[in-house]
């Protein structure tokens, strides 16, 4: 009975994992990169590298942001001001156009810009999506309608959750094999690699998968809101976070109160609160209208949770309308903590690095699991292959997809950064082209992989990917000398130096993998070494 149960779970693990592994790898890799979303954006905007962090007060910055917003869109529906923090040095402004009634809202109504916090002038930077590309890719994929993409991602994540649980059930020797990796032994080694990357980061994998599903649960699991709120999501969120709905514009113009004054007032109220008294961001609803209101959200965390404290003022009189204190309700705290865990918002740099390492472990777990399937299948088809027949179409397809998805991934991601430095500055839709380059490169690898999936191609692609990453700091130093590693190591920004070093480490690791792939092959050629059969068989492909 017990064996039969385990066998069923093994079946589920294998097929649940195999079906979604390639998309899952993309999701995991993009998510892992997103831990350094701001740092990646900074690396991709070398024009900002020489700018020192601003020492000015938030009140002054707010003043400059308001001047800029008044110039750009005095009758917007709402304004948003995001203040600089340790991870992002620009002053961010954002506005939403007021639409005439009956017009279908599209993304076109949103605009954003980065300002120099000390001058209020727009920062002249190259057009790039930066780290936001990976962040969006992580749950919206690309070239797909957003809702469809999120359903695909949710589907894959649910499979991942099932694969994780079944993986724990079928792993008989979690503790005995805890530190065990036996390289150069074919199937045994792939299983070891899959186990070790899975088990050692298991708390992370479970946490990230569950909290990831949770972030979009309103989409996937709508029935509670349907029965309790007649499907009105806004009503639910409003009640949950005790938000007052933003007032409708009155249509009567009025002079906006001093925004800088409100910032100072908020900092006074939050004096002594956990995580400091600074403002993280603020919204100005219906600016220059008699029904204007201003809400400010506090920066800093209280433990795992973002502070959650906010203040809402009347936008004309400047009177305090509404105050949200730190969250007390256990369920809401749990949900907020889970969200925060997923996004690692609370994490200082060292902890963030640990999240990044665990994320890489997840990528390796998925990749090694995918390869393990083909290694086993080759063994199962040993007789057929030995008699000179080609592998079954299923095996060949999976081998091609594995090669394209796994070896293609580092190439595709590196292409993004290469394109960032190499595409001409004036190119129309430059930021879109950076992304097209990623998918063109990836498609090329996928096609080559289907054409000739085999050890040679693996080696070639891994070398290519590894060298592209290794060469990134060189490219950076050549095309943007002011951002070269030697300069950034001495004068900062630290994030840019960190990016270059990480790129080199990743490149070295991929080159190592390429070198190992070649080494195993030369062992196979040498019959005295008694190579595992499935490696010899790979030569057939």
């Amino acid at each position, binding site marked *: 009975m017990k064996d039969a149960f385990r066998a069923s779970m093994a079946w589920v693990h294998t097929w649940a994992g195999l079906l979604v592994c390639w998309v899952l790898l993309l999701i995991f890799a993009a998510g892992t990169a997103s831990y350094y979303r701001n740092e990646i954006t900074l690396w991709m905007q070398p024009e900002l590298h020489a700018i020192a962090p601003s020492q000015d007060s938030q009140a002054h910055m707010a003043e400059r942001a308001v001047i800029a917003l008044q110039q750009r869109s005095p009758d917007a529906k709402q304004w948003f001001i995001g203040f600089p923090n340790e991870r992002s040095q620009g002053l961010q402004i954002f506005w939403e156009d007021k639409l005439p009634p009956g017009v279908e809202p599209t993304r076109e109504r949103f605009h954003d810009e980065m300002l120099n916090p000390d001058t209020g002038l727009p920062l002249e930077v190259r057009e790039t999506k930066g780290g936001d590309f990976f962040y969006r890719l992580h749950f919206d994929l690309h070239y797909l309608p957003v809702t469809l993409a999120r359903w695909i991602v949710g589907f894959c994540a649910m499979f991942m959750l099932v694969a994780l649980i079944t993986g724990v059930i079928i792993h008989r020797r979690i503790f*005995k094999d805890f*530190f065990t*990796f*036996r390289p150069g032994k074919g199937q045994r080694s792939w299983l070891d690699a899959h186990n*070790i990357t899975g088990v050692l*980061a298991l708390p992370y994998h479970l946490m990230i998968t569950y909290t990831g599903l949770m972030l979009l649960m309103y989409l996937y699991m709508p029935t509670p809101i349907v029965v309790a709120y007649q499907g009105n999501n806004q009503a639910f969120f409003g009640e949950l976070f005790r938000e007052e709905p933003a007032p409708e514009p009155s249509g009567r113009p009025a002079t906006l109160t001093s925004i800088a004054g409100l910032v100072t007032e908020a900092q006074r109220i939050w004096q002594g609160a956990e995580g400091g008294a600074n403002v993280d961001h603020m919204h100005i609803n219906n600016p220059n209208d008699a029904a204007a209101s201003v809400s400010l959200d506090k920066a800093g965390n209280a*433990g795992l949770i973002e502070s959650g404290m906010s203040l809402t003022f009347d936008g004309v009189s400047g009177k305090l309308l509404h105050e949200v204190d730190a969250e007390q309700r256990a369920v809401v705290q749990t949900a907020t903590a889970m969200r925060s865990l997923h996004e690692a918002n609370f994490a200082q740099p*060292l*902890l963030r690095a*640990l999240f990044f390492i665990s994320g890489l472990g997840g990528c390796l777990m998925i990749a090694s699991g995918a390869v393990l399937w083909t290694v086993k299948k080759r063994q199962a088809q040993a007789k057929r292959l030995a008699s000179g027949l080609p592998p079954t179409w299923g095996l060949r397809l999976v081998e091609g997809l594995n090669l394209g998805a796994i070896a293609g991934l580092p190439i595709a991601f590196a292409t993004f950064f290469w394109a960032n430095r190499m595409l001409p500055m004036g190119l129309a839709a430059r930021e879109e082209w950076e992304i097209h380059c990623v998918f063109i490169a990836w498609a090329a690898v996928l096609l080559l992989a289907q054409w000739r999936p085999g050890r040679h191609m693996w080696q070639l692609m891994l070398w290519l990917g590894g060298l592209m990453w290794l060469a990134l700091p060189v490219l950076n130093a050549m095309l943007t000398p002011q951002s070269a590693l030697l300069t950034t190591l001495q004068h900062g920004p630290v994030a840019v130096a960190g990016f270059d070093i990480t790129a080199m480490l990743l490149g070295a690791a991929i080159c190592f993998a390429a070198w190992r792939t070649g080494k195993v092959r030369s062992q196979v050629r040498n019959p005295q070494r008694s190579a595992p059969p499935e490696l010899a068989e790979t030569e057939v492909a």
Partner: protein
Amino acid sequence: MMKSTWLYLVTFVLAYLGLASLAYGMERHHKQLARGHASSVLAALKRAIPVAAWAWLFAALYLAIRLEGAGPGSVLWLGNLTAAAMLLALLLTYAPALARGLAMLSLSLILIGMLGAYWV
């Protein structure tokens, strides 16, 4: 700032030491980590070291929580365990002598640190 950065490193060192001590008691890794002991000492150590492992791991948890508070501290602890375990697994595979050396170094650092903290 500088001081607390060192303490983060200590969390990692404690995690590594704890996991290496656990591995010391495991059939497969005992020989890799135990070279050089006399056999009678070995038998005693083989029982004692894995017990001490839990002390190191709890010390790491305590330190992490002191540094970051309960929530982020436990996350920091788990993250350190994962990273230290990956390092240990790699070293045991490719350079067991280095794994042992690093464990001994960690142990001496921790003991010196404890003595130092006691004196200061």
